[in-house]
Structures are given as structure tokens and as C-alpha cells.
């Protein structure tokens, strides 16, 4: 039970003076994902076949590799921003929320790094 006034609770520790950046970058990455996703799907579907050699040859192209890296990074970034909002919405309690948010950030960073590494490895012709 708390005898704190309702206004005291609402004012709390004040405004964070942030949130614009998160909101704006989420929209920017969403816009960037439209052409990247369309290119990815169209480009994959126009491959003559999906066997290993064809796909590796496709990924070794400079433009393909470049756009794939952008796609992986933008996807991971956008997803991290979105999942962060979901966690803030539904996970209550400062400790649980902080731990979840940090894990979300780490997992997304790992996925992004792994994706970029994979594209580079194929693009620069290392034996699979």
C-alpha cells in the first residue's frame, strides 16, 4: 500500500527526453526494407535453380553481396527496435525488463554479425 499522491506517481522520475530516435529509425528501416525485400525475393526467384553452385555464384556477385549485407543489417536493426517495443509493452518489473532487453540486443547483434560474416565468407570464395 502506498499513500503517495496519484500526481506524484504519474510525474515519477520525469521524462526520459528520448524516444524520437527510436521511433524515427524504426520507420526508416521499415522504408529501407521495402526495396531490399522486393529485390531479395525477385532476385532469388529469378535464379535458374536453387542448387548449391548456382546460389554461391549468385552470392559472389559484388552487388548481391552488398545488398545482402544491407538486408541482414537492416532486418536485424528493425527487428531489434520492434522486439524492444514488445518487451517494453509486456514485460513488467525493472529487473525482468532490463535482462530481457539486454538479451534481445545481444541476440540481434549476434544474428547480424553471423549474417554479415556468412555473406562475406561466400562472397570471397572460401570453400564451403
Amino acid at each position, binding site marked *: 500500500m502506498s499513500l503517495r499522491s496519484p500526481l506524484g506517481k504519474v510525474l515519477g522520475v520525469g521524462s526520459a527526453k528520448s*524516444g*524520437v530516435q*527510436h521511433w524515427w529509425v524504426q520507420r526508416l528501416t521499415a522504408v529501407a526494407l521495402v526495396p531490399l525485400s522486393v529485390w531479395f525475393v525477385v532476385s532469388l526467384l529469378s535464379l535458374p535453380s536453387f542448387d548449391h553452385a548456382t546460389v554461391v555464384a549468385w552470392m559472389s556477385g559484388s552487388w548481391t553481396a552488398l545488398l545482402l549485407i544491407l538486408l541482414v543489417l537492416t532486418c536485424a536493426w528493425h527487428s531489434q527496435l520492434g522486439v524492444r517495443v514488445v518487451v517494453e509493452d509486456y514485460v513488467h518489473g525493472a529487473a525482468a525488463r532490463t535482462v530481457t532487453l539486454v538479451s534481445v540486443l545481444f541476440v540481434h547483434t549476434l544474428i547480424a554479425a553471423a549474417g554479415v560474416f556468412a555473406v562475406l565468407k561466400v562472397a570471397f570464395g572460401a570453400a564451403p
Partner: protein
Amino acid sequence: MAEFRLPANSRIMKGVTHAAPPGTRAVRTVRIYRFNPDSGANPRLDTFELDARSCGPMVLDTLILIKANVDSSLTFRRSCREGICGSCAMNINGVNRLACTTATRDLAPEIRIYPLPALPVVKDLVPDLSNFYAQYASVKPWLQTRTPVPADRERLQSKEEQERIDRPAACILCACCSTACPSYWWNSERFLGPAALLAAYRWIIDSRDEAGGERLDELEDPFRLYRCHTIGNCTDVCPKDLNPARAIAEIKKMLLERHS
């Protein structure tokens, strides 16, 4: 974690049925959420069968009829009975609205009435609005200026400047919008909700107000403002046909412009 199931003492039980008076030809069934904090019992859903011909046109008329003739312990807020005080906001057939401006003939044959969602219930249809009012107070809903008042007149506005705030200023603080917002359900202690944000917007765009920057500073927060995910229930349910969703979007735009 989020709670998706009501706590055990909030689950609604079967209530009592008050049968229609003998000789009733057209029966109107009204089911009403009842909760009495003194009894220690769970909330229940009571059924009132009424003579449709004795009911007035609005849902509020029906509630007053029940209180006068069937069960005087039925508790609800009402005052102006013409949609301007905002007291009788409640959840009627699944939608937050004012009982006094909702015609019974527009509703399905059976009427179900609950208090506004996701607020602590004081008794029956009376929710605790302390947090809601504190959120309204927190946006400082009054004129703030540095320029002294002109000695010979009021602070003037052009006609266009008045028209900009005309609609947002028509909010009656009934709380239909905020309590219809899922984001508000999950985070009402930190998200200000559509009603308070509409009030903040009304003062930010007021041509006479000189504290717009400070007002935006106070709103620039991942929870206070950015919990709004443009769901739009607020605008859907507003009994005064206002547009809190658009007001919130405009606030977000102003914040962005300030940064770029």
C-alpha cells in the same frame, strides 16, 4: 510478465436474475456487472428483465429505472444526461460509451453493461479514475505564458487559431478513449493515454501558450508518449467524435521536426 488472465478474485460469477414483472409482453434483458467491495465476494453479472415499454430511450434511462424500481443498490455515476459531463462512461455491449447518449434501440436485443475496462472498480459501474485525472493534471492543462497580459484587452487569437483548438478542447474527460487503448491497459502507470495526450496537444497548438517547448520536453519519453502504437481505438470510441490518435501523431511529428 504480462497478465493475460484475471486474478482469482476478479473473475466474474453468475449473478441473480430479476424476472420481468407479470404481464410483460416485450421483455428487455439487461446484464450488469456488480461488485461490492464490502461483501468480499467476487464480482457477478446480474440479469434484469424489464418491460421494454417502461424503459426510456437511452441506456441511462434504463439504469435509472432499474435503480428506482428493481434494485436500489445498483451504483453508477451520472449527471447531465446530455453527453457533456462525461460521468456515465461505461462499457456497453463491448464498446466504451456514454450511457446517456446511447440509444437502447441501437443495441442488440440483450444489453451487457460493464464498468470502463482495466481500471480498479470502486463499486458496480464506478471505476477509480484517480490515475486518469492525475495524468490529465500532469500535462498542465492551463495557459502558460511569459508575455504579460496586455493592459487593455485579453490575449487575442485569430479565428483560424481558435478553430485549431476548437475540437481538441471539446474533450469531456469521460475516459472512454484511454480505457479502450490496449497500450493503456498494459502500461497505464507510465503511458499517459489518449485523453491526457489530446489535452497536451490542445495546449501545445494554442497560439496564446508560450510553453510548447517545455510541454514537448515532458512528453518526449518512450512510455509517456511512444507507448501509442497507433491502434486507433481512442478515435473509434470517442463519444464526442474527437481524434486523439491524430493529435498523438501530430505530437510525434512536432518532436521529429525539433530534431531534424
